[in-house]
Structures are given as structure tokens and as C-alpha cells.
């Protein structure tokens, strides 16, 4: 409004009740934005965009990143997220339960909530390498993002590129999530769809001039397969945050006062699958996680925009998993021995109800002291940051609990023993520490030409003991650099390179002992009284003293072009993320001695079992594999990400945004593979069997996402259609499968004997020339397809908003192939619902955010 120098000017100003009534609204991610204090490639999603994303958790907010497949909103299953990774085929070989590429990538994707990292390092909710039951739990992989409701998030920064040295314990990237805090107009939100009901409320109040208090609460429930099972996921979260400014008069500038940010939060995430006696009697499973976190951040201004910040957090998560199912086993010699040695066992057989519980109580301490200060030297404007981190994580839970006689495993070949219960509170804690230094510097060179550099160095140390004063078990130095050259304001050339490191999990550092129950005597008769089973139990510790950090190497280069008016942008980034030393299970071959006994009084009909004749008549060897955690995995992802935002076509209120990513991932297990017949070798008499090199499993995926947004601010109407195009999706296992593919052989004493390629055709190796099973050598290409989702939002009286959403709106099934065995493209089924948002001003005390 131009105010005349004299006279009066009357103007009617109409205030919009709702953001949808404003002419400019950002309902998609800021694809070329930057995370606070970061120069690496980042996607920033602000509150407005989060509010217009149909999302039950932060996982669905992350669908705004390039190349992320869309999923229906809800709490349907475990939601783990990995940056810049394409899925590969499942792991095979002899070791079941080993991490898959997605597990490794999600474990290496750091999630930072309100400035404090979340961690799954002490999560032991997994049944280990011999487990036969997979849980809907998250042990050994990334955290379950269902615990972070989207409705309470203020901002998300996904640092896909090279993060600054401030962030550690990661290999892929960082997801920074800030929940709502400060003075927030009280607001309620509800969602209703066929499977999910959700209600949430947020509100923040200014208490005097120096205090603000914010409360967040969210309740959600999803029926996972209504009509088919009774499985439900239920989430309750709550948070109270308080900010206080102390140390000076209220009239002082804020940066001269001490700031205390206190947060206390709670979450509960249950996924229960109750028994359905008429359909699956005896089958019950449940995962119940609940946690409390208390954190405090104190910021002390040091003048001249410098500050010292102390962050401390204590985090407790209780996890309770139960799995129960009927199991069937044949007549099997059985021992419940818990120490090394031989004893008389008995025979078990038939159907039984197996139940096990995994009960973990995870604790985490996190402390960070950071100083940051601006400076100016050598012609550059600097923002320097230096900090130190201390972490300690442990699990005080009762552990892996079950009745030894009714274990959750039924496979027993006379050598590989059943698992035994294990207490988690006996596992030593892990302690890590870190130091980092980071400098972000900017300089205008000539005219509009600007150069920006962020360089940092981080040192992560894993301590050998349980506290930070103990020695160093492993340490990794991680230099990181991001650089940007901007010759004109609308053009930026960017590049980054850096090392990152991820510590092993508690379970990998202290794996469960492995039990081998070698059968010495297996005398099974019709008369139970005459049966005799003698077994020798060997307990082997698969712990690996050499186990250390896995290391990520990230590099990227890109270009960003912004339209002169600022409402259009193009960004292209090429990247390579390579993890070496990822932790997997390495099958270490060795052998166990097996005593064979002659029997006395073995005549049938005596009514008593025979007796063994000591000493053993002879002893042979049984080859066994110790599944030892080791830094054997390599995950290499490379690809291109592109985003294009076109300027708003104002006559029709239309905006189009296109983004996509082409990612190829290679997942290599750097360990020998003994194939699927090693069990037969253990129990048979063959002198040797072949082994092969590890398999490289690859996945290549290209996803393009188009978002068309139509906005009518006059009616408070917003219509958006999101179309996702699956342009490429190929899985391939890279390994020779012919009869000459073997690398050597393993003997009955567990010795590996390599055979050079030129000798593999020799007659003496004829027994080793067998086809390799479990490898699909042909590329498995899923058909190209697309999926469209629709959202319509409309303002309501009193400042409310009603939204209709339809995921896979036209219910595309996906594309099948000409044969039923070919890999089809199956799309998630349609989901639709309504969301209602209403301000609570008038119902609750509050004021508009300042």
C-alpha cells in the first residue's frame, strides 16, 4: 500500500482465515532448500507442506523426496526409511536372518528428532541368524518411523547429500525432524479412512514474556487387514516442551539471555495380532513398544552471535514382542543343556505350541556440547562449529525368553542346536564418543560470483569398555566437504565428498552364543522306555573382537537453476554412496568332534534303554559354521536425482512439479557361500563340498513423480494430483551358477581349500562340479506402471479445513506378465478417507503464534 504524503487513505484489508485462502502456498517440499547449517543436498519440508501431505507418520512425509515410492497413509506395517537406495533381492546362502540391503541402508539413515539422534543400536528384537520366525520388529535395522506422527511435525530436513561433521553414526544420510514448539495456535486434527482412525491436537502458549509451553498429542489406530485378520497397530504419542529465557531483563535482545529448551515426550506403538481360534488356532503375535524421552538444551550466548549449546537426553524404550504358533517336529533327540558337555537327552516329537517373548529395555544417554561462532578472515565469512558427543546405549531387558523344550525352531539336523534363552541385561553397554569441527565459509569473488564451502572433520570412537573412560576399540576419522560455486544468483554448481561411519549394534557387538547339539547316540524304538539319546552340547561364542565401524563414502555433484522470479527451479544431482564394512553374518567354518559309542543291552523288549560303552568306539568330525558378525557387507548405490518445479500458471492457478531418481544399488556379501546343502554335508559322510564366492545382488529403480497442484485461494480450495511413474525396476543376482563356478571346497574339519579356475575341470574335482542353487541369474524386470493419488482440500467456516484423499485413486492393480512366474508389478491397493482440521481457539486458551 502506497501511503500518500498528505491526506488520508482508506483501504479494506481482508484477513485470510486459513492458509488455503492465501494466494501463495507451498504444499510440496522445497527441493532446493538447505537444512539449517548444512550445505549438502537437502529436501526441506515445512509445516504447510506437511499439513497438506496425507501422512500418518513421518515416513509418508518423506514421500516428498525424489525417488521415494508412494505408500498408503496409515500404520500398516513397520516403516523404515533408507536414503538413496534401491531394493535388491533377498539374501540367500546358508545364513538366514542376515541383514538385507534395505536393513543396512535404513540402519545407516540417521533420524534426529528435536536435535537428538534416535537410535536402534540397542534394539535386540530379533531372533538371530538361526531364527525361523520373523517379527514385525525393527532389530538390526532402522527405527520404526510410525512412532513419529506427521501431525505434530513442524519441519523435516532430509540431508541426502554429505552431511556436516555435526552428524555421526550414519552411512546414508540424515533425516532431521523438528516437532512443533513455541506459541502455536491450538488446533485439532482428525482422520478417518477405512483402516485408520487418527486424532491429534497441538497447542502452544506464551506464559509471560520469558516462557512458552507447547503440548502435542496424537492417537491413531490402523486395522492392518480388516476382515482377514484382527491385526491392529495403535499409536499414542504425547509431548510437552517448555522454553525459558533467563538471565536478563525482558527488554534485552534475546541473544543475551540463557535459553533452556526442555522436552518430555512419550510414545506407545502397539501392533497386535490376536488369536483367531476359528481360523488359525494358537497363532498370536504382538509387538509393543513404548518409550519416554527427556531432553534439555541450554544455549548460552557468548556475544557477537557466538553461542555455546549443551544438549543432554535420556531415552528409555521398552519393547515387548510375543510370538506364538503351533509347530510340528518329527521325533528328535533333544537336550536342554546350557553348558558345554555331554548328557543323556530324550526324544521329543509331535505338535506343540511354541511361544517366545523378546523383552528389551533400551536405554540411551546422549550428550553434546557445541560451540558455534561467526568469524571473518582471509576474505571469507565463516561460521564455525566445534563439538563433542558422548553416547551410551544398553539394554536391561529380561531378554529372549521361551521354554527350552518348546523352542521357536523345529529344524534340527543332529548338529545345529536350538537357540537357548538369553538375558539382555547381561550384555555390556556400548559407549561412543566423538569430536567434530566444522566451518562454513562464504565469499563473494567477482561481481555476483559467490563461492561457498563447508568443510569439517569428525572423529568417532567406539570404546572397548562400557564407559567413555575405557580404551578405544575402533575409531574412524571422517573428513567431509561441500562446495558451491554460484556465478550468477540463479545458477549454482555444487559438489560434496565425505566419509561417514556407523557403529555396530549391541547385538552385533555381543551376539548370542551359538549352540551345537551333536547327537552321539540316537536309539529310537517303539517303546519309549527303551529309547536312548545322548548328545554333546558345544557352545561357541560368535563374538568378533575385530568388529568395528562400517564406513560410508559419499560423493555428489549437481547443478541448480532457479527461475529469476524465484518460483521455478531445476536441480540435478549425481551421487554415489558406498558403504564398506557393513555388518553381516560371516559363516566361519570349523569342526566339532563327535564321539560314537557302542551300545550294551540293546535287545528290544527289555523295557529299558541300552547303555553306552565307554570310551567312544571312534570319533569323527562334524563341520559346522559359526555365524559371526563381521564387517563383510558392501552396499554401493549410485544414481541421479532430478527435480523440476515450474512457475505457477496463474490464469488457472496450476503448478507442476516433477521429480525423480534413478538409483542402482549393489549389495555384496564379502564372505564365502556354502550353498543350501551344507546341512546335508554336516550329517552325511561326504569328505568335502564346494563353496562359492559371495553373491552380488543388484537392484535398479527409476521413479518419476509428478505433482500437479490447482489452487483457488478465493474459495480456499486446493486440488492436487500426484502421479508416480515406475519407469524401471530390475533385480539381478550377479554370480556364476554353472558347475565350474565353485571357488574351492570345505573339508570335514572346516578347512577351506581354494581351487584355481584352471583346475576346476580336473577329474579329481568332479564331485564339486554341481550347479549352484538359490541364485536367479536372469534379471527380473517388473513391468513399468503408474499410480495416481488425489487430494482435495477445502476451507470450512471457523478456520477449519476438510480434506478428501484417495491413494491409488483409480485402484490400479499393477501389471501382470505373460507368465505367472514372471515378476509382476503389484501396486498397493486403493485407500481413501477424510481429514478434518479445526482451530481450537475459543475452546482452549491461546493466541496466534507470534
Amino acid at each position: 500500500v502506497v501511503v500518500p504524503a498528505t491526506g488520508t487513505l482508506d483501504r479494506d484489508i481482508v484477513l485470510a482465515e486459513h492458509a488455503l485462502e492465501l494466494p501463495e502456498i507451498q504444499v510440496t517440499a522445497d527441493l532446493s532448500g538447505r537444512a539449517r547449517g548444512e550445505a549438502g543436498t537437502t529436501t526441506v519440508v515445512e509445516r504447510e507442506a506437511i499439513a497438506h501431505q496425507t501422512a500418518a507418520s513421518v515416513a509418508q512425509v518423506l514421500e516428498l523426496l525424489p525417488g521415494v515410492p508412494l505408500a498408503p497413509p496409515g500404520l500398516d506395517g513397520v516403516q523404515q526409511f533408507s536414503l538413496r537406495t534401491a531394493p535388491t533381492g533377498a539374501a540367500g546362502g546358508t545364513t538366514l536372518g542376515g541383514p538385507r540391503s534395505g536393513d543396512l541402508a535404513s540402519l545407516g539413515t540417521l533420524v534426529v528428532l528435536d536435535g537428538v539422534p534416535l537410535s536402534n543400536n540397542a534394539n535386540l528384537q530379533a531372533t538371530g541368524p538361526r531364527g525361523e520366525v520373523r517379527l514385525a520388529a525393527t532389530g538390526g535395522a532402522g527405527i520404526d518411523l510410525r512412532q513419529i506422527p506427521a501431525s505434530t511435525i513442524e519441519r523435516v530436513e532430509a540431508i541426502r547429500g554429505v552431511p556436516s561433521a555435526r552428524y555421526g553414526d550414519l552411512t546414508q544420510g540424515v533425516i532431521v525432524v523438528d516437532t512443533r514448539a513455541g506459541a502455536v495456535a491450538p488446533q485439532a486434527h482428525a482422520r478417518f479412512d477405512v483402516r485408520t482412525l487418527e486424532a491429534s491436537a497441538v497447542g502452544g502458549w506464551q506464559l509471560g514474556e520469558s516462557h512458552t509451553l507447547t503440548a502435542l498429542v496424537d492417537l491413531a489406530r490402523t486395522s492392518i487387514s480388516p476382515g482377514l485378520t484382527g491385526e491392529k497397530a495403535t499409536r499414542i504419542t504425547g509431548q510437552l516442551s517448555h522454553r525459558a529465557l533467563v538471565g536478563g531483563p525482558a527488554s534485552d535482545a534475546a541473544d543475551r539471555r540463557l535459553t533452556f529448551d526442555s522436552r518430555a515426550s512419550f510414545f506407545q506403538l502397539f501392533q497386535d495380532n490376536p488369536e483367531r481360534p476359528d481360523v488359525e488356532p494358537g497363532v498370536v503375535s504382538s509387538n509393543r513398544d513404548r518409550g519416554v524421552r527427556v531432553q534439555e538444551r541450554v544455549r548460552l550466548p557468548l556475544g557477537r552471535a557466538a553461542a555455546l549449546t549443551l544438549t543432554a537426553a535420556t531415552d528409555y524404550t521398552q519393547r515387548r514382542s510375543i510370538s506364538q504358533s503351533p509347530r510340528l517336529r518329527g521325533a528328535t533327540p533333544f537336550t536342554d543343556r546350557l553348558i558345554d558337555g555331554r548328557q543323556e537327552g530324550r526324544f521329543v516329537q509331535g505338535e506343540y505350541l511354541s511361544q517366545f517373548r523378546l523383552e528389551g529395555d533400551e536405554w540411551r544417554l546422549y550428550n553434546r556440547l557445541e560451540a558455534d561462532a561467526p568469524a571473518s578472515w582471509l576474505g571469507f565469512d565463516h561460521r564455525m562449529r566445534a563439538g563433542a558427543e558422548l553416547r551410551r546405549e544398553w539394554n536391561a531387558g529380561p531378554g529372549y525368553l521361551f521354554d527350552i523344550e518348546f523352542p521357536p525352531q523345529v529344524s534340527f539336523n543332529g548338529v545345529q542346536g536350538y537357540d537357548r534363552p538369553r538375558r539382555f541385561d547381561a550384555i555390556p553397554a556400548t559407549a561412543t564418543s566423538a569430536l567434530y569441527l566444522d566451518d562454513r565459509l562464504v565469499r563473494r569473488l567477482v561481481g555476483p560470483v559467490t563461492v561457498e564451502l563447508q568443510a569439517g572433520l569428525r572423529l568417532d570412537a567406539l570404546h572397548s569398555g562400557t564407559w567413555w573412560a575405557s580404551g578405544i576399540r575402533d575409531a574412524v576419522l571422517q573428513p567431509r566437504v561441500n562446495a558451491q560455486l554460484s556465478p550468477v544468483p540463479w545458477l549454482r554448481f555444487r559438489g560434496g565428498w565425505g566419509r561417514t561411519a556407523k557403529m555396530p549394534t549391541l547385538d552385533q557387538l555381543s551376539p548370542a552364543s551359538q549352540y551345537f547339539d551333536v547327537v552321539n547316540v540316537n536309539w529310537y524304538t517303539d517303546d519309549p522306555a527303551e529309547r536312548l539319546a545322548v548328545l554333546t552340547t558345544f557352545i561357541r561364542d560368535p563374538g568378533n573382537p575385530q568388529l568395528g565401524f562400517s564406513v560410508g563414502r559419499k560423493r555428489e555433484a549437481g547443478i541448480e537453476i532457479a527461475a529469476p522470479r524465484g518460483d521455478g527451479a531445476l536441480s540435478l544431482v549425481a551421487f554415489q554412496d558406498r558403504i564398506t564394512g557393513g555388518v553381516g553374518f560371516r559363516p566361519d567354518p570349523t569342526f566339532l568332534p563327535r564321539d560314537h559309542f557302542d551300545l550294551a543291552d540293546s535287545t528290544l523288549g527289555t523295557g529299558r534303554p541300552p547303555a553306552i560303552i565307554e570310551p567312544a568306539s571312534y570319533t569323527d568330525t562334524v563341520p559346522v559354521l559359526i555365524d559371526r558378525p563381521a564387517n563383510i557387507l558392501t552396499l554401493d548405490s549410485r544414481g541421479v536425482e532430478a527435480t523440476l518445479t515450474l512457475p505457477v500458471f496463474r490464469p488457472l492457478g496450476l503448478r507442476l512439479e516433477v521429480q525423480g531418481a534413478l538409483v542402482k544399488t549393489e549389495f555384496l556379501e564379502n564372505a564365502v557361500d556354502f550353498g543350501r546343502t551344507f546341512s546335508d554335508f554336516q550329517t552325511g559322510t561326504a569328505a568335502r563340498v564346494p563353496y562359492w564366492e559371495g553373491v552380488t545382488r543388484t537392484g535398479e529403480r527409476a521413479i518419476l513423480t509428478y505433482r500437479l497442484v490447482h489452487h483457488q485461494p478465493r474459495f480456499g480450495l486446493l486440488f492436487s494430483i500426484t502421479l508416480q511413474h515406475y519407469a524401471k525396476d530390475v533385480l539381478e543376482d550377479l554370480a556364476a551358477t554353472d558347475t565350474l563356478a565353485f571357488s574351492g571346497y570345505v573339508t570335514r574339519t572346516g578347512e577351506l581349500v581354494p581351487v584355481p579356475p584352471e583346475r576346476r575341470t580336473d577329474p579329481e574335482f568332479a564331485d564339486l562340479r554341481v550347479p549352484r542353487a538359490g541364485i536367479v541369474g536372469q534379471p527380473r524386470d517388473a513391468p513399468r506402471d503408474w499410480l495416481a493419488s488425489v487430494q482435495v482440500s477445502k476451507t470450512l467456516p471457523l478456520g477449519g479445513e476438510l480434506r478428501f484423499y484417495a491413494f491409488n485413486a483409480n485402484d490400479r492393480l499393477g501389471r501382470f506378465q505373460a507368465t505367472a512366474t514372471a515378476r509382476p508389478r503389484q501396486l498397493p491397493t486403493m485407500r481413501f478417507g477424510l481429514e478434518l482440521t479445526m482451530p481450537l481457539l475459543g475452546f482452549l486458551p491461546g493466541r496466534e503464534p507470534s
Partner: protein
Amino acid sequence: MRPTVLVLVVLAGPGLVQAQAAGDQEADRGYAEWMTAWSPFRVIADLAQAPPAARPLVLVAVPAPRVGLWWTAGVPAALSFELSDERSAFRAGVARTSGPYRRAMDSRDVTVIQASALAWRPIAASGGVAGSVIVDQELTGARPYATTLLPYSSDPFVVADTTAPGTRRVRARVEGAFGWRVGPVGAGISAGLEEDDHRTPDAGFPHFGRTATPAVRAGISYVPHPAIRVAVYARWIRGTETLSMVPRSATGLVLRLAGYHEPDSAAVAGPAFFFRRSERSARAAGGALAGRALGIDWVAYAERAIRHNRHFSAQILDPPTDRWDADGWVMGGALQRWLGDRLLATGHIHRTTLEGDAQLATLEGVIFRVRESELAISGELRYAPAGSLWTAAARYHVTRSHRLRYDYIAEVGSDLVEWTPSVAVAASRRVGRATLGVGVSGAAHTAAGGIPDADAMGPVYQTLVAPGLSLAATRARPVIGSLSLGHQVGTGLTIVLDAQYATLGRVEPAAAPSFTPDGRRSTWSVSVRVVRLR
């Protein structure tokens, strides 16, 4: 024969809360037909057979019917020419239907909870918008046999099974229209999306179904003379319905009806499951003419419609499909004139014709042929003097439908002409800020023609098909009574409580064909409306 034009009318007030329609079928949202004529979901090339019914007439907070390209023919391009007021209405209600006088594949009892909203407003002087939302949940008790949502459409391909689980169905529909004009030329588009999920909450042989239906209507209009408006438009609807049945603790026998012959049946037992996908695509193009002469507002329209439905079960590339192809015409017109300053006369005539052929994936040639037509004529006289406390209306409506269906496999057919004339009267009176309204309407359904001798047909026909045909061929008398109480709570803002009761039963029970259901079927409905006018 010259159509009689003076008598007719249309028009209904808020109807029963019902959620029976689905996908590309029209849904009753409780608003007068002229208010939703623009809906992109108006049926294309299908004449679903409904049980005989009377049409309610409600006057409280319901404006007089309107006639025009937008209001009658639903052309969105005419929105900017005909829309002059702003109105929004929110409605929430519950209804329950029960009683044995029903067809074999109708739900035994149905409870519907429904919320809806409908609004329109002009944009400056050159445009207008309209929008509508409907959300409902339908709980059926035992739903014998029918698995397909629309077992009585013209398409004879229907999936049924031998179990009778209760079903929970949730549906949401969003639709909107936008029209604008530049000088004498107008353009407009209406688009919508309906999504539906229906499943058996707790069954040993659970059923899962879902439908997704996008629809679009677009056109242009032109005003060559102040008294003449002309428009052309095109419509498109593509609905998908996906069904699956999974044997858990029980097994089932799935029947794939394709007319009057005994269908293929498939026992579904674990680990197999039954899958069926129906993809229904329909399009139409038409033109409309409207104007004003001699104090009469008039409109005439004609539309050519084509439908292709495809049904398949194999989850492979290019699966073998059962096919239903139909085409037809829609023609109609309406008139409206004030008789003095107290009486408003409105008339409407609407005729639909349809020809369709069905082919099985496994057979060459047509297996089922349908030739159907429906003529609806209505007329309303409304007494609504300015400043009077009273409003009254009387309406006459008659429907004649002719359904000729022949099954080339069973070599039998049906040829049925049904007449359903109905009369409705209603009155309302304002008392202070309150308004009380009552209405009653009744109809007499009769039929002539022939249907197959059910006793000579197979057991599936007798169980699933015969009751529907027999009900259509039987004289029946539906009646509806309604009561409305409105209260004006502010300027232009009215809250209305509506209650309705409808009942349907046959007359002359002894003369009914075999397999005709007995007893009566009734529906009660209670709803609250909030109407805002500007």
C-alpha cells in the same frame, strides 16, 4: 404420440438416506434431483433395475425447482449463465431398511450413516462453481448371495456366492464443477471421484471389495440470442470393481451369473482364493438447447451413450474377459412457468433407451441380449406466494420401463413393461422462525409381459434371478411419508430436522408369480440439514 408437456414435473426434496448405489451409478444424497443434475456421475448407458418406489416431496428449506441447461441437463458450461445465488447445505443422517419384500441379492437389512455437503456460488459475473461431498457407511446384515455391488444393473455379469456374511461398506465421493464465460461463449467442466471399500468384518469366508470411479463432464455453451442458449458436452466415467474371497475357516461356492442360464460355479477352498475385476468404461456426448418464450423457461437435450464393461479373474497379462457392450440414447426436456404470481408449474420428460450384448470369454457370440427403455414424466404445481406463511406442492410422476432380455444359452427371455405412477402432496407453514412441513406420496406399480417359468429353470435361477423378476412383475404399492421441522437460526441460516418413513409391499398376493417374496419392506430415515443461503 405428442408428449404432454404441461403436466410434468420433476422434483424431489430431500430423499431417504441411501447408499445403495455405487461406482458409476447415481447415489441418493438427499438433495433434489435438479440440484445434482450436473454431477459427472450421472449414469451412462445403464438402466439399473430398482424396486418400486414412491418419490418424497419435502418443502422445508428446499427452493422451488429450476429449469435450464445447468439445472436440468447438467451442462457445466452453462453454470456461469444460470447461477445467480449462493447456497450451501450440510446433511447428516441415519436410515435403516428391513423387511422380507426384497430381491434375492438385496441385503436383508441395511443401516446407513451418511454425511454430505452440497454448495454452489457464482464467481464475479463470469463464472461459477459447485461442489459436493458425500461420505457414508453402510452396514448390512446378512447379504445373501450378491458379492457384486450392483447385481441389478443392465450388465448381466454378476458374482454371487453361497454364503451370507454381513458387510461393512464405506464410501466417499467428491465432485465439483467449474464454469466460466467470455461474452456469449461459456465453458465448463465437472469432475468427481468416488471410492468405496466393502468387506465382511468377521467371516470364515471373507469377502473384500472395492470400487474406484473417476468421472468427468465437459462442454461449451453459446448464447446466440438472449432468449436462446445452446450447449454441447461430453461425459466419461471409468469404474473399477475388485472382488476377492478368501477361504479361512470356511469355504464357499462362487457363482458367476451371466443371464438366466445356470452359471459356472467354482468351489473356493484354501489355499486358492477367488478374484474378480470389473472395469466399466462409459462415455457420452450430447447437446442441449434452452430458452425462454411466452414466460416459459424450457430446455431440451439429447445424448448418445456407449458403455464397455470388462470382467476377468485371471491375474495375467491380457486375461480372458467377459464383455458387456451397450449403447443408447437419452432425450428429454423440461418446462417451467409461473401461473400468476402464486403458482409455479414445472414439467419434465426424460427417456432412456439401451441396447446391450454380453459375451463370455469362453464362447464365441452373444450369449445375452438386452433391449431396455425407460420413460419418466413428471409435473409439479407449487403454491409459493411471496410473503405467505404457507407453501404447498403437488406432484405427479409416472415411469414406464420396458425391459426385453434374452438368454441365448438357456433360450429363454423376459419381456416386461412396468408402469409406476405416483402422486405426492406436501405443505409447509412458517411459525415465527420455525417451519413445519409434512408430505406424503404413494405409487402403484404394475407390470405386463412375460418372464421365464421359474419352475422350469435351474436352481440358481430360482434362487437368485427369479425373485427379482417376480418382484418386478408383481403389483406393488410403495408409500412415503415425511415430516420436517426447520428453524432459522440466523440470516440465511436454517437448521432442518427431517424424518421419513417408506414402506413397500405387494398387492393381490395370490396372483403373484412363483418365487415372489412375501411381506413388506420398510425404511425409516432421520437426518439433520444445515442450509445456508446468501
